[in-house]
């Protein structure tokens, strides 16, 4: 190396105040000249060096987001929200395995006879998933989460979105195995939204156990009765039934929004909340 950087330039570079074009020249030179890099070290404040190492260290052991979390961040979800979504308690292999098994059984019946089993079962999956997300049953960090300043309603909505998205994708894949039924194989979608939103909205009044239990029982009774009473397509899966499900989903969502403060009121939600 036939030349070396000026000492004043190195000092300014170390303090981040060297302006272009000298900045470019010094930077290019530093990459090739060990002597100037050594000289630069003397100009860098020790605290800044320590802070730099600390930042590097922090990046090296920072949590690596999993595939779902990475995807969420890539589509614009804030990294802290993505982490809460990915950490939703029910999104574990055991729960997802149970969902897949249920759908496989329903599809098996569908392939053999009619898609009614899939249409009746799929709406219950997010209802149950959201219900068990909202309590200590499956959330090992429930006690810590319940005293955190994060609003309960926000956490509930994040978990509801996570569960609904997952079960919708899985149920959608299950529907693809029944192409002969066309769009009718997606007849579970609106009831799923209706049941989930109704279940969550009623949770504010009846608690996280009774509300989804009543909604699930009501749905099962409706499907069973309409199957027995009608010879053709059961009522919930007709055009009128689908319209009614959409209306119920909208009304329940509106009720949920108006009741959102109840989740953060500090009072027990329904008669069963005391045991949580």
């Amino acid at each position, binding site marked *: 190396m036939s030349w070396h950087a000026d000492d004043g330039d190195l000092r300014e570079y170390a303090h981040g105040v060297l302006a272009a074009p000298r900045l470019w020249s010094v930077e290019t030179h530093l990459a090739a000249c060990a002597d100037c890099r050594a000289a630069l070290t003397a100009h860098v404040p020790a605290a800044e060096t320590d802070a730099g190492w600390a930042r590097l260290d922090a990046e090296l052991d920072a949590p690596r987001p999993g595939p779902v979390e990475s995807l969420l961040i890539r589509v614009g979800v804030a990294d802290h929200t993505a982490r809460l979504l990915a950490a939703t308690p029910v999104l574990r292999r055991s729960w997802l395995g149970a969902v897949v098994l249920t759908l496989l059984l329903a599809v098996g019946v569908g392939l053999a006879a009619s898609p009614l089993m899939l249409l009746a079962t799929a709406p219950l999956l997010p209802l149950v998933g959201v219900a068990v997300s909202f309590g200590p049953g499956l959330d090992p960090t429930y006690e810590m989460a319940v005293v955190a300043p994060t609003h309960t309603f926000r956490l509930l909505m994040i978990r509801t979105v996570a569960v609904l998205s997952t079960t919708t994708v899985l149920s959608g894949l299950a529907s693809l195995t029944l192409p002969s039924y066309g769009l009718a194989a997606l007849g579970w979608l609106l009831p799923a939204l209706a049941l989930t939103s109704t279940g969550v909205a009623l949770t504010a009044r009846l608690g996280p156990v009774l509300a989804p239990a009543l909604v699930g029982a009501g749905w099962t009774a409706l499907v069973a009765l309409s199957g027995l009473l009608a010879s053709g397509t059961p009522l919930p899966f007709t055009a009128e039934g689908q319209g009614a499900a959409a209306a119920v989903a909208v009304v329940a969502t509106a009720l949920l929004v108006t009741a959102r403060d109840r989740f953060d009121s500090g009072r027990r939600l329904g008669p069963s909340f*005391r045991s949580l």
Partner: protein
Amino acid sequence: MTRPPGSRPTVSAAGLALRYRGTRAVDDVTLRLTEGVTGLLGPNGAGKTTLLRILATATPPDNGAFTVLGHDPSTVRGRQDARGALGYLPQNPGFHPDFTAFEFIDYVAILKELTDRRTRHAEARRVLDAVGLADVRGKRIRKLSGGMRQRVALAAALVGDPKFLVLDEPTVGLDPEQRMRFRELIAEAGEGRTVLLSTHQTEDVAMLCHRVVVMDKGRVRFDGTAAELTAVADGRVWSSAERQPGARAGWRTGTGEFRNVGDPPAGARLVDPTLEDGYLLALGGDTPAEVAA
């Protein structure tokens, strides 16, 4: 060594009551906590955990009122502010077992509304360093020992530098060495903070606490210093060669003699009381079965 505790109340509770499964789990409890470590002693089922859950805002009381660092948890705003200022280590802390220690603390930091990634990670590193887990922060929690998991839970409680720390029996299940290490950590945590430590080990109280509250059957039976609790048993502990039917509690010691607590008969050989003797007497009429010999 903890610094002398402050005298200004940081957490105040009056007339707290909560019924749980038909019993009065907490019954008219009035407390004023100050800076430093306060021990909450009591047998199983005394209502310690229920009281801690109330003060940690995990469950609202049926009756009574309390404030945490000036915030009133009976209002939405007050509860959010109180939660932002407190750390809670529950009796059975749960973890996402597939998370590393760092990831778990990061998750807790998000729940505590530290949304900026860099700030959050710096906080995770700070609290893990504080509990001596810097070297294992990248390890999955399921691969950590019980003592290390408990330290992860303490680190989670310390996220955000809370000024009120609620610790529910944090030394249960730890071996003696881990227990000593944990006591050091709690003593450090008590510097400049209000710490409420639930325990049924009088050694914890003797080593850590500037003040002790004894609970039984949902009620406060004693509230004072450890020395005052020991003094409750002054002149009420004696040794004898035979079991003393009139003693409230009695057990054979390593010397082969019986140590008795209660109202001594005339001419009894009185011995110096310990904190445990005072605790047994503070519990009142019912002798804990496991103590009676």
